[in-house]
């Protein structure tokens, strides 16, 4: 069953298009890898689905609804940038999410904060890059959303913590939700992906089940990634 659908989605002007006519159907109950180098259009695509950017043309529907306040209720987007207000403490971040998202689970948030070795009384402004990344992930994954979009969730995270984050993502995945992860770190992500979407110059160049793609091409996703983007 489809959860997210984009039709001829374009963002940009004239010849400079960050996203160029992408048509996608994303199904429920899967973990998708949105793969591509910097500037390929992954973040722009995610931001349009999250409602932070408006398409130049084409349309997007989540669960049959156009992008707006209703789709934001069921979409949990984690931006690659640190988007949490510096004046807040981690506890206030939890309160903010509880106030705005009906699907937020405070107990899950507390558990994840503990798992990420953070403390509720820490100020966001005083967190290191890695700690701030952990906080973003904990807050996003504490929701029970239908659609999760994690933009470079391993950025700024040390090797030990990466494993923890991947575990947290795997634990979140179920038949009722969809997780889309964008990352350069394909080797670390490959083991948790059901489907892959390769994006190049704002266009989808390859899409399919990770297992089928591996079998058909006789290569791992990492090797395929190198093949697709070597000419970039």
């Amino acid at each position, binding site marked *: 069953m489809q959860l997210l659908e984009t039709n001829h989605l374009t963002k940009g002007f004239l010849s400079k298009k960050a996203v160029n006519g992408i048509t996608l159907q994303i199904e429920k109950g899967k973990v998708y890898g949105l793969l591509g180098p910097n500037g390929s259009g992954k973040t722009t695509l995610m931001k349009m689905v999250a409602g932070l*950017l408006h398409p130049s043309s084409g349309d997007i529907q989540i669960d049959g609804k156009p992008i707006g306040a209703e789709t934001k209720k069921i979409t949990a987007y984690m931006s690659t940038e640190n988007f949490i207000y510096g004046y807040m403490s981690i506890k206030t971040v939890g309160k903010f999410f509880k106030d705005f998202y009906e699907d937020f689970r405070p107990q899950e948030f507390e558990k994840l904060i503990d798992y990420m070795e953070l403390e509720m009384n820490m100020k966001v402004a005083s967190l290191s890059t890695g700690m701030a990344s952990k906080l973003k992930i904990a807050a996003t994954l504490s929701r029970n959303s239908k659609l999760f979009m994690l933009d470079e969730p391993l950025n700024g995270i040390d090797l030990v913590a990466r494993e923890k984050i991947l575990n947290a993502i795997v634990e979140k995945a179920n038949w009722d939700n969809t997780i889309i992860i964008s990352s350069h770190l394909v080797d670390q992500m490959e083991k948790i992906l059901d489907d892959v979407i390769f994006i190049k110059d704002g266009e989808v160049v390859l899409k399919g089940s990770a297992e089928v793609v591996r079998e058909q091409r006789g290569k791992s996703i990492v090797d395929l990634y190198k093949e697709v983007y070597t000419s970039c």
Partner: protein
Amino acid sequence: MLKLMKYEILRKQRLLYISLVIVAVIEAGIVYTLYRGGNSLAIFSILVFLLGFGGLVFILIDNIIMYSSDLTKKQGYMIFLAPRNGYQILGAKVVIGFIELIAGFLLYFILMFLNSSLFYHLHVEEKTGLLSLFLENFGDILPNSYEAFMILLALILIWFSYILTMYLAITLRKTVLSNVKFSGIISFVFFIVLVILISFIKTKIYELFGFPAFGIDFNYDKLIKGQLTASYIIDSIFILIMFFTSGYLLNKRVDL
């Protein structure tokens, strides 16, 4: 919208404490110059002006910075990702901005009432004749409390419409030129253009109804029934137009 307002207040909390400390320091300066009297009364006048006009400018700048940073910095994602529309997000900011303005005016007038009582007690009571001389010359042009309230209301609306004009200027700049250098300067240019345009339209409307567009009529009854009533209506209409235009752009056009 109440939840959005709650987090607007929390964001302003620290700034609020700092501004209260600044107000307390200036007020202490005012009281000190009042006690010293003589030439210090010149400094007293400057401090009274600084507290009033400086406070108004401070509120305007505070509102501009908060709104602008939500549209230009990544932290703005936090409220724009929340399941609320552009009108609700803007509405929360506008209501808090209005409350801030009213609270600022109230604080200023309470302090000025106390300062004027102190001034009267220290410098007027003994020097009999000074106040009566002032009232003799200017008593006729001073408004009574009702008239003063109505004039104040018009001033608040005018200042509030400046805040909304700046919101619209920032939103327009973000819509037309999303990621450009010197965004602050460009927004300010948009603001100036909007102010000129709105003043031009207002002047035409005033002319149409036969009110003087500039200057003040010291016949307060006539002023309130005519020019000020027109000002309340026209400013309120412009405030609404600017609010709905900015809200629409936030919903449909602004890219973060």
